[in-house]
């Protein structure tokens, strides 16, 4: 059993809704976090990301101008001077399978469908802290390994070539999003 020293973690929270930011701040501080930086849009979040170098990013999806998906894509730039590896937790009211897939393909590490719960948020944070996945870089993708199940049967066009198949024993992002929070 693991516990997290939240007081050693630095969070960046990005949500355009002030009520949700307040809830997130309350939950993170209750877990023990001291450093919680907040932004209300993706552009400001990206600036804060470079400036504060957070350990974990928690972002909404739907925001004006520069949304959470674009924020994830901007962070996951392998050649950037900043840290492209930080865990990104997408906390969103979007709850459709298609959305989970799009978020995953943008490099999002964990997906948490609203309504939020303390337990769901804690579990996602514990998972990114305790079970980091290797990163994969292809022509079209840079982000955490998207393979999470034991099936070697996938033969689609995006099948990676070369090397032994290494499969991480974790539930898929979709299954986790479906599970009760």
């Amino acid at each position, binding site marked *: 059993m693991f516990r997290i020293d939240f007081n050693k973690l630095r969070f960046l929270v990005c949500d355009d809704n002030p009520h949700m930011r307040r809830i997130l701040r309350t939950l993170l501080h209750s877990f023990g976090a001291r450093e919680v930086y907040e932004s209300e849009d993706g552009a400001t979040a990206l600036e804060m990301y470079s400036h504060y170098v957070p*350990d974990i990013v928690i972002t909404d999806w739907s925001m004006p101008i520069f949304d959470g998906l674009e924020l994830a894509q901007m962070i996951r730039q392998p050649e950037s001077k900043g*840290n492209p590896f930080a865990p990104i937790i997408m906390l969103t009211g979007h709850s459709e*399978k298609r959305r989970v897939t799009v978020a995953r393909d943008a490099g999002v590490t964990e997906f948490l469908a609203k309504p939020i719960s303390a337990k769901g948020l804690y579990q996602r944070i514990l998972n*990114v802290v305790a079970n980091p996945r290797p990163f994969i870089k*292809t022509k079209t993708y840079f982000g955490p390994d998207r393979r999470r199940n034991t099936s070697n049967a996938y033969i689609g066009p995006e099948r990676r070539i070369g090397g032994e198949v290494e499969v991480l024993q974790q539930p898929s992002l*979709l299954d986790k999003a479906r599970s*009760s929070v």
Partner: protein
Amino acid sequence: MAIDKRDIEIKAFADHHVITQPNPLRKVLRRIAEKDLDNLDDPVARAEKALAGLSGEFKAWMAIEADRLSAAHAAILSDGFTEEACEELFRAAHDIKGDAATFGYPSAGAAAESLCRIIEHAPELDQVPSNLIAHHINAIQAIVRERTKLDNVSVAGELSRKLRGVADEYLTHANRDRPEHLEAILAPSLAPAD
């Protein structure tokens, strides 16, 4: 915690690279023996208690969210379905979809989800029967304002279910020649049940 790029290991394969590094967050993990768990404060319980402490504000927050939705709708009635107005209507409804259950108004969240589906999947928003959108917004307002008067579990729940049924019927018909939308409309939500 800063990443030391010297610790990063990159393995090259035919069409991809696998990049690994020592867990940069390992220093914040503490292993706890099962026997010691009872003596520790549970962080989840502590956070739930803090969230409960905020609950006195939820009614006012919900009213603000519902008013924002009504204002977005009023802008559409006044200026038409401009891109900006439609985006604001969607964002307002989408926020209620995500927040309402936390605030204690799950039926308002369900009605807002139904409205989001209309905005997202209607082929032409200005062709949607105006009553269909108005009924959703009025229902959300009623659920929020009359919460203490309504038998909220049965009436509000029934109201949002009926709205969803009518909206789904409209969307299924309107998207009969748009299979990608039809698939999304008929797919089950991933959001946990109330």
